[in-house]
Every structure is written in C-alpha cells, then in structure tokens.
C-alpha cells in the first residue's frame, strides 16, 4: 500500500490524501486459465496479424483498413469476452484478483467509494439488469457477456471513432485530404482502445470522466487504451525522415504505433509494479499550497 513509486510521476492512489475517492478500482483479468493465457497472447496475436498484413496496408491503406476492421472488432470482442468481466458483473470490483486489488488500492476511502457505488443506483443505472442476472447465475453466462460486447461495438463506431478522428486532426492529421484514412485509423484505434473499456465499465459516467482526464488507475484495460493513444502519438516520429519509404505515408506509422502501444500498454498496465497507480501531481502543481497561503 505504501510502496515507493517506481517512477517519479506515478504513485499509489492512497498516498495522495487530497485525491478524491476513485470512481471505480482497477479491473483485473478473469482468474480462469484460458483468460490468463489468452490475455497475454492477444496483444502478440494482434501484432503478428499487423506484421502479416503490413505490405498490403502500405500498398492500399484504405481498402486494407476497411477490410481488416470487422476482423479486428471480432478479435477484440473475443478477447474481452474471454478475459475480462463484463460491466455490472461485480467481478470488476470484488471477485477474481480482488485480494490484489484491495491490497494495492484498498483503504478506507476506496472501500467506502465502492460501497457507495453499489448502493447508488443513479451512477450505474441501466446495468441493474445485468447485475440481477449475474446474481442468479455464474459469471460465464454468454448473453451476460454478449450484451456489453455489442454495446461496446455500437458505442465505438458511434462515439469513439468521431472523437478520435477529431483528436487525430487536432494532433496534426491532414484535414483537407486523407479523410478516409483518418476516419479508418480512428476506427482501428477506437476498437483497440475502447472495446475493453466499454465492456468492463459500461457507461459509468464517473469512469468516463476519469478516462477523459487520463486519471484512471492502471490496469490491463486502461493500459491498452492509453497505450494505443500514446503509441499513435509516437508513431508520428518517423514521418519527417527523408528515407522515402512507402510506409512513411500517413497513417501507416500512426496506426503501427497505436498497435504497438496497445500491446505494450496492456502488458505493462497489468504488471504488479504499476497496477492501480495513476498519474500524480505534486501539491504545488495542483496549486493547493497557493490556496492555503
């Protein structure tokens, strides 16, 4: 609980007294053998597939991105249904690796927050149905998993893709040309980053506020999502080089960066030295001392 932070900018949530209670604790992967193995294999599988289709992607990005999108969506849905607890199942907040989650982030504030959420129907309205079914049967009910998966796919294409397209343009993607590339790149990034987030957290407003503010505690799901975006940002680095390679064209490096970022993020985000930690600011940086004075 009070372990020293490995990186100067990260620390456990409980070390910072003024931080408000977390809306939702980090989510561990399901404890089953299959989930544990596949959660490690999935990022490598995606990278392998990217490597396999890379030449086609360079030759004709739009067609290739469009054709690959359904397969990527299927793979991601398969991944979340195998390895992660669906929204409202209660798994995310109690069972599974709960001992670890509590050990890392527990404390009075944390458990109080959890309690509050469980008793607060406003925050998690709409998922009461899942929970009731969940309480009746075992976590493995297929429909219990399928509905959040379909929900996440719908939201990805309706909300996450437009938002990420706008962000891509703000971060420097061309606006007057390459619009198909931008939207398709955003769609791939959305499937990579948001499928698991929606599947696990549903439409919990507090969680999505934290996502918007990059304030989620680290876990495999959030690591993958943040990794996708940071990877895409670093993907812009090789573009200005004068190597005259066809793969330097937009959006190939951005997308490759996003895939690599997703793989690295989901593997590192779940690692015990990061699990449950979030980006932390010194009191001076948040202007707390200033207000006291």
């Amino acid at each position: 609980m009070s372990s020293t932070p490995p990186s100067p900018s990260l620390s456990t949530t409980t070390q910072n007294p003024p931080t408000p209670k977390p809306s939702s604790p980090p989510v561990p992967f399901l404890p089953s053998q299959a989930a544990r193995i596949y959660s490690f294999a999935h990022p490598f599988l995606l990278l392998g597939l990217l490597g396999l289709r890379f030449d086609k992607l360079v030759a004709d990005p739009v067609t290739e991105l469009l054709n690959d999108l359904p397969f990527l969506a299927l793979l991601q849905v398969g991944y979340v249904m195998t390895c992660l607890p669906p929204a409202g199942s209660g798994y995310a907040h109690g069972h599974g690796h709960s001992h670890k989650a509590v050990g890392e982030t527990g404390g009075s504030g944390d458990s109080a927050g959890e309690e509050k959420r469980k008793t607060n129907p406003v925050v998690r309205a709409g998922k009461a149905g899942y929970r009731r079914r969940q309480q009746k049967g075992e976590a493995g009910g297929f429909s219990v998993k399928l509905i959040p998966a379909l929900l996440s796919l719908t939201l990805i294409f309706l909300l996450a893709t437009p938002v990420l397209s706008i962000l891509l343009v703000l971060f420097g993607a061309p606006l007057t040309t390459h619009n198909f590339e931008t939207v398709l790149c955003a769609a791939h990034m959305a499937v990579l980053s948001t499928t698991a987030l929606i599947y696990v957290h549903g439409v919990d407003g507090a969680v999505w506020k934290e996502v918007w503010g990059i304030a989620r505690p680290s876990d495999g799901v959030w690591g993958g999502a943040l990794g996708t975006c940071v990877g895409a940002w670093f993907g812009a680095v090789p573009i200005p080089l004068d190597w005259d390679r066809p793969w330097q064209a937009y959006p190939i490096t951005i997308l490759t960066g996003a895939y690599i970022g997703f793989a690295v993020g989901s593997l590192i985000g779940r690692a015990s030295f990061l699990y449950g930690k979030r980006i932390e600011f010194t009191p001076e940086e948040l202007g707390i001392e200033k207000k006291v004075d």
Partner: protein
Amino acid sequence: MERESHLQSSLFVLCGDHGMNDAGNHGGSSIGETSPALLFISPKFQTKGMQRESPVQAASSMQYYRTVEQADITPTLSGLLGIPIPLNNLGVFIPELLSMWDHGPQRIHILLENAKQLLNTVKATFPGYAFDPKSNPPDCDSGVRTGVEEIQCTWFRVLELLQRSEGIAHPKIELALLHFSKAAQNLMSSTSSNYDLTKLNLGLCISGFAVLISSTATYRTVLKFRNATVFLILSTLGYGAMMFASSYVEEEQQFWYWIFTGWMFYLHIRLFNKQSIFLSCESASKKRYRLSAPSIAKAASPACLSICQRILRRWNQTGQKFTGEPDIARTFLSKRPIALWSLVILTYADTCLHLVLAVPSSRAWRLAAVTVTMVAFIFKVNFVASDSPELFHTSSLEWIGNINVSLVSQARLVFGGIALLIIFLICVNKMASSSHSRQRPPYIAFHELLTLFLITQSRATNVPLFSIFRSQFYIIHSMDLMDIEVTITSLLSQYMTFFAFGGSNAISSVDLSSAYNGIGSYSVVLVGVLMYISNWAGPIWWASASHLLRPNPTRGERVVRIALLTFHVTASLMSVMAACTALRTHLFIWTVFSPKYLYTVAWSMINHIAINVFSEAALQSLERK
C-alpha cells in the same frame, strides 16, 4: 550544332547539380543522388576522333565512362575559353580535352598555367615552404615525406623536366604536370576540411559547463513541479538527439508542433486533476457534483488551444519534405485577397482597440494610438502594393496604395510614431512615480506597441497570425497556469511560431523583405536588427506575452524562469555543437548542420540573451524602483 557551320567549334556542356534516387527524389546521400551527369558535346570531338560509345549499359554503381571532380570543370572551361583560371580554384584540367590542341607546347602551356595557379594556393596555405630548388636543396630521395614535401618534390621534378624540355617528349612533361596538379588538389581538399578539433572540443566543454550550471539552478523546481520539469527535460533531450539527424534538422518545425500537442495533453491532464480536486472539495460541502460554466470553459481550454495550434501549423508550409504543399498563407490567402485583407484589417483594428484601452483616461494617448495604427496600416498597404501586387488586385484598397509618399518615409513615420508613444509611456511612468496619485501605465501598453511594431515587420499574409496569438494568449490566461507552465508554454510557442511564420533551418528561408523598412542607405547593424525582428516576430511576441501571463512574479520566480530557459538553450547549443563536430565529414555538414549551428547562435545570443533574459532583467529592475 552539326548543321550550322558557325557552331562547328562550339562546346555544349550539360552539367547536373544532383542525381536522383529510384523514387525520383534527391537530397539524400545514396549513390544515385550524389552522381550527377556531366556531358561535353561538340562537333569538334568527331573531327578529333574522340567519340565515346552511347548509350551504355545501365550500371548500379552509376559510374559511366569516367568520374570527374566537380572542381575540374572550372579550369577546363577557362583553358578552353583561353581566359585566366580563377584565383582560388582547386580543379585540374580534364586531360581528355587536351587533345583539342595539336601542338605539344600549347598543351603544356595550358597545364602549366593550371599548375602555377594551384601552386600559388598551396604556397598561400603553407607559407613555410618556398618551392624554390635553389633556396632549399631538394631532399626528395629519402623515404618519409609529409604531404607538402611530396608536392614540393613533384614540383621540383616538373621544373627539372621543363629546364631540359628540348630532349624530352611532351607527353612526359604533361604527365608530370598532371601528377603535380592532382597531388596539389588532393592536399588542398584535405586542408580545406582540416578542422581545429581542440577548439571544437573546448567549445563543447564550455557549453557542457553552462548546461551543468543551469541544470543545478533548475534542480529545486524539479522537486516542486516534477511532471512539468520532467516534460521540459525530456523534450530538450529529444530536441538534442534530433540535431544528429539531417532530416529532423530540416523538418524541425515538426518537432515543435509535435511536442506542443504533447504539452497540450499534459495541461489537459493537469487541469483535470486540479478541477476534480476542486469539485471533490465542493461536493464534500454541498454533497453534490456541480458543473459551473467557468469550469467547463476551463476544461475545454486545452482543446481550444489545440485548435489554434492546428491552424498555426498549417499557416506556412516550411522545411524540405512537405514544402510547396498547400497551406493557408501561400495557397489559400494569396488567391483570396478579400479574405486576406479582411483578416489583416481585423488584426489592425484589434491591435488599435487594445492599444487605446491600454492607457485609460488619457485622450492624447487615444488620439496618438489611433493615428499611429492608421499610419502603420497605410504603410502596410503601400508596401504590399509595391512588393507583392499579386495580393492586391480586385481589392478595393487601391486608393490607399496611390499615396505619393516614399515607402522609406512612411516606414520612418510608423517607427517614429511608435517611438513617440513609448516616450509618452515613460513620461507618464515618471510622473506616476513622482506623484502617487496617478496610476502607472501597465506593461500591456508596451506589449501592444510591440505588437504593432512586429506587425509592421511581418509579411501581410502573416499579419493575421497575431490575432491567433491573441486568442491563444487569452485561452492560456484563462487556464490560470503555474509560473513554470507559463515558461514552458512560452518556450514552446517561441520555437513553434518561428516556424509558423515560414522560417526554417535553411539560410535561404531568411526573409529580407521587411529588413529594409525605413532604411535609405545600407547599414549592416540596422538591416541586421530589422531582419532579426521580422524573422523572429513570433518568438519576440511570445517572450513579451509571457510577462503578461505571470502577474507579479517574485525575484526567485524570475530566476527560475531564466534558469529553465537557459537550460534549454545551453543544452540545445551543446547538442548542435556536438552534432556538427561528430558529423564534420558528413555530406550535409555545410548545407544542413552548419546553417542549424548559425540559427542556434541567433537563438541563444539574440533571442535568449537579448530578448528573454534582458526583458526579464529590465522588468525586475523597473519593479524595484
């Protein structure tokens, strides 16, 4: 040429300045790009029997017939034209073309002229050697000789052969002369890239020491403002590493645009964290989340800043790789004079309004401010009318462009007006300090005058940028940033806007169009100052704006700001020096790395010391009064 009789003895030289790679591009160091073609075409060659087979088989090595040094073209053409060889030439006559002369003495004369000229350059470089067989007897039989001694011996051999020229066949003398010239050429090419490594390393050590001093001064802020300082250090390290790659030096603007998006992302996270703490405190007291309008505006401000930055980024396409691609200033606005002039007028009007409001309760100031802005605008219209009339037709501003006052006097009028307004501000300031009843004019009045001056020194297509700057300024102002964050934002903005104005790390991109404003006869200092101001208008504006963004900093805060800026400047200076030293034999040392070094000198000597440090020190001393 074959058909016309008067062209029978003409020579057609086809000379490429570069080759190309498989994609058809050039500028790299591949064999295809660095092997340009050289063709000598003349009907004379047929009569002399000097034909070469053509076409030849394609070779991947790009070496056809023979490789000729680029420097050899000059003495060859001089010889063929019968004119003297240029003084500092380092080339050798191309031996194949000697067959243009039938007589041996003529050929020897050509080669001897070439050799004597080369000998003079060698003598000038090595004054210790007399190249006179009488003054110091030749010691050419011993085995070990330095480069110059070798040349000396070859020259003595040439002289010896020339003295006994009656008995010796001409080809032998020709060979000896060519041998000498080639040896002299090799020696001189190696000395022209003979760097004084001791001095280079000394400079590196001094800049390294400066980095050390400035980083110890920033050490305390690292603990206090961890994330922001880590961001600054990482971006400075990335910038330093970038200086070793020629394409990143050419595309430096991409780095600043990229790192600025990262900084916006950081500010977004930081503001969100602060906001959520603020909200949680509130919810603790009111038991309810409440989203007020200002808090939403605050949360959206990094996004708004990103939109402004995205427009800036596309304003002037610069660098090498994407230059000439459509942008706002050169593609969009140039073809739409009405849009351009509406934006320009809007910027002038906005500046005028802010100028008027800067010193309240003074009618004289208001009148003067409006007049000076009007004069500045009329000057801009007239300047564009004479400098780039293509931005002008179909516009209804032509009646202003017909004023019969010379541009020089108009510019002097603008500068004089701005100077008068500054004097006015200083007088009011003096009066205010003597009688405590009056209010001091705020720094913003000076800043607005500076804005007007910078607008005058900017190209018309860049004038609307100042309106974007102003929007960015208000957005940043509303974010209520920490001192260190303002410093980093201003640092990134200074570099970013330099490139947004169309600047790059190529010497050719220096904009001289506004450097002669108000100058009748050439003056190095005045033109230099005006040139700096017109090319660094964006950085100067942001250096000044950052003073406004930090209300009443303490002396310690000022020191930290200067230390952080100095850390960045010294670290980038050191990395550029290290890159130039390490890559001194690189193909692009004179075209990419050395220009970058000159730009870095301008950034650190003028922009850092004269603008950032000096203005900070001046404000500090004013405050103490």
